[in-house]
Structures are given as C-alpha cells and as structure tokens.
C-alpha cells in the first residue's frame, strides 16, 4: 500500500524537473531528475514495482513535454531494465550500479529523443547534440545520482520495513 508514494513523489519530481532543474543547464544539457529517480528506485532491494513507476513517470512527463509519451516510456522502461540487469551483477557496489544505470539510461533516452526528432524532421546535427546536450546531461545525471540514491534507499526502507528488519 505504501507504494502509493510513487504518485506524489513522481509528481513532485516532474514539477521540479520542469520548474527548477531545467533552468540549471550546462551548455545546452540539463539533468533528468525523473530518470535518475527511477534508476535509484529500481536498484533498491525488494522493489518489484519499478516498471509501474516507469509507466506513471512517462505519462506524467509526457504531459508537460512536446516529446510523445512512447519515447519516455521506452526510455524509462529501458532504465528499469538496465537496473534489474545490473542489480544482481554488481550488488556489492550499489553506487557503481547506480552510475552505470544512469549513464546507460541517459544515453538511451537521448538516442531515442534524437531519433524521434530526426524522423519528424527537426534539424539536429549529431555532433552538436552529443557535445552540447548529451555529454553535459550525462555529467549532471551522474552528479545527481549520489544524493538521489541515498534518498531512494530511505524511501525503500520506509516502503519495505520488513526488509530492514530482516
């Protein structure tokens, strides 16, 4: 039942992303708070609702973005997938797994966005896009990973108190 925290938490993340995080740009890129939050959540022990969170997040974000919902859904689902794949392989270094998921997730998300915008005819030079948007966004997402992982670990302990006791 405590999983319902996803609704206010993701809602707040989308609002913060749109109102604040997108104002702090490095070159032309900025951090993706929702993506990093999803990655941090999916990497927590005992989490079985990461795909549900990704679905909810993609609906919420696409509501305020010009990009269609299926791009966000594909991107966020791939983030959760990476997290589930890496969770068991690098379980001894959760922060390393977090960095890896944030890195791969950002790359996939940007490739999907780039591909879609190229298909609909937006003139986006690949070199400029990589250098001015993707690389700065990667750096910002990795920086954001550290505090968000700790925060989501606390949320996971609150949602799954039985795991902490065990």
């Amino acid at each position, binding site marked *: 039942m405590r999983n319902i925290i996803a609704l206010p938490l993701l809602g707040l993340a989308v*609002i913060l992303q*749109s*109102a604040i995080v*997108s104002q702090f740009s490095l070159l*032309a890129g900025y951090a993706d708070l929702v993506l990093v939050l999803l990655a941090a959540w999916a990497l927590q022990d005992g989490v079985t609702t990461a795909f549900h969170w990704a679905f909810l997040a993609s609906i919420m974000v696409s509501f305020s973005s*010009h*990009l269609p919902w299926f791009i966000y859904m594909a991107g966020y689902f791939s983030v959760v997938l990476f997290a589930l794949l890496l969770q068991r392989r690098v379980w001894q270094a959760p922060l390393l797994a977090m960095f890896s998921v944030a890195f791969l997730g950002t790359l996939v998300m940007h490739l999907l966005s780039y591909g879609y915008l190229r298909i609909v005819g*937006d003139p986006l030079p690949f070199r400029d896009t990589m250098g001015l*948007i993707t690389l700065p966004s990667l750096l910002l997402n990795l920086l954001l990973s550290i505090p968000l992982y700790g925060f989501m670990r606390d949320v996971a302990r609150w949602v799954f108190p039985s795991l902490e006791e065990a």
Partner: protein
Amino acid sequence: MKDLFSRTLQTTIIFLVIGGILALSFGGFFSSITNRFTGGFVSTQEWFATRYQAIQEFLAAPRDIVSLRTRNTELQKQVSDLQAQVINLQQRVNETEILAALVDFSRTNPENSYKAASVIGRDPSPFLHYIIINRGSNDGILRGMPVVTSEGLVGRVDAVIADAARVQLITDPASSVNVHLKNADTDAMLVGSVTGDISLDLISQDATIQPGDLILTSGLGGGFPPDLIIGQVVNVQKRAAELFQRSTVQPAVDFSRLQIVLVIINFRAVDIAPLVPTTTP
C-alpha cells in the same frame, strides 16, 4: 554632695577627652589611625557587598536569561518575518516593473489584444525549447497564438489545456519564422538551433545586409502578425557558391530569463499547409 561633684567632674572630663579626641581627629592628627580604620571598614563592606551582589545575580539571573531568550526568539521571528516580507515585496517590485513594461508595450500596439501569463516551467527534454505558461483555454488561449514580451517575439502556443499552455520558442530547432529585414527591405527565414541560438537563412544574395539591421516578423505564412521585433543581425555569411546568404542573430528577448509573457489573443494563425503545392509523381 561630694559624690555628686566627683561624678560631674568625671563626666566633664570624659566629654572633654572625647571632645579633644574628636577635635584632634578632625584636625587631622589621627589621620593614619582613621585611615586604617575606615580602610578596613570600606574593604569589609566591599567584600560583603560584592558577595551579596553575586548571590543576588545568581538567584535573579535565571529568570533574566529565560526572559531574554524568549525576547530573543520573538525578535528573531520578527526579523525572519520582515526578511520574508522584504523578499516578497522585492519580487512584487520586479513583477510590477515587468508588467509596467508590458502595459507600455500593449499601449504602443493597441491593434492587438493581450493576455498576460507567467512562465511556470520548461520542457523536461533538453532537445526542445518550449516553455509552459499558466494560462490555457479557460482564458481564451488557442493553439497558434503568438507570444511576445515588451522586448519582442517569444514564440507561439503549441498545445493548450484548461489552465496552462505550452509555447514553442523561436529558439527551438523546429521553429521557423518568416521575417523582414527593415533596412535591406528583404525577406528571410529565422530558424532556431539545439544551442538556443537563432539565425537567418534564405536571404537573397542580392540583398545588402549590415550588422545591426533590425529583424521584424513579415507576417508571411500567417503564423505571426507582421512587424513584431525579433532582434538584430550580428554578422553576415555571404558565399558566392551558395544560393542564399546566412546571418547570425542577436535576439531582442532574453530567453533564459522569461518570467511574464503576453499572448496575442486576437490573432488566429492560418494553416497554409493545404495551399502548399505538392509534387505529383
């Protein structure tokens, strides 16, 4: 009788002795002795007085500390309240200045009707240059309406919901605006980019463009009303091998600091897509 005389004599002698001692002491003849006596007295009194004051302070001080701490807390709360008020008023002053500029702008352009809106967000994707405003269809906002500030053109409404709308900025890579260069008296196309810079394309090779030339909307295509300020030409790239000249543009609007914008609500964008000829096989 003899006893009475002797007692009187004794008393007289005692008074004379005391009077003499007093006279000698007032005359300063016993100053060393009186100094020792008064010095000892004063130091003893001082010792008692300081101890008494210390005890009094010890007993009274806790009450003072509590009251002072209470007072300090009250004053700190007042200070924080006043600081919040100062920040709030400063914000209102800034908003008032922006609104005053917008009112001036709307008065100088009476042919248009405006609806003021606050910028409440930006597109979550860094690939896109869109803003979100707090006015929607409930306020008469429709898709395609131009958005301006007192400085110039901002963009056009891309999507609308009841209480909010998304605006595509002219800096967006997918944005294109038909413009007119006033000094050169020629038309061109303004396009955005991923970096948020804007540039001019499709400028005729015959046109003479100078840095500083004013760029206005031309109104062609029906997407924007004519004569809205966009910016100035920064430099011109003219190559003989190319069909058109290009130019970088300094926008009149600072897109990173957009707070309040005006939506031109009496302008209906015309969709000319059906009129554009298509190539037949």
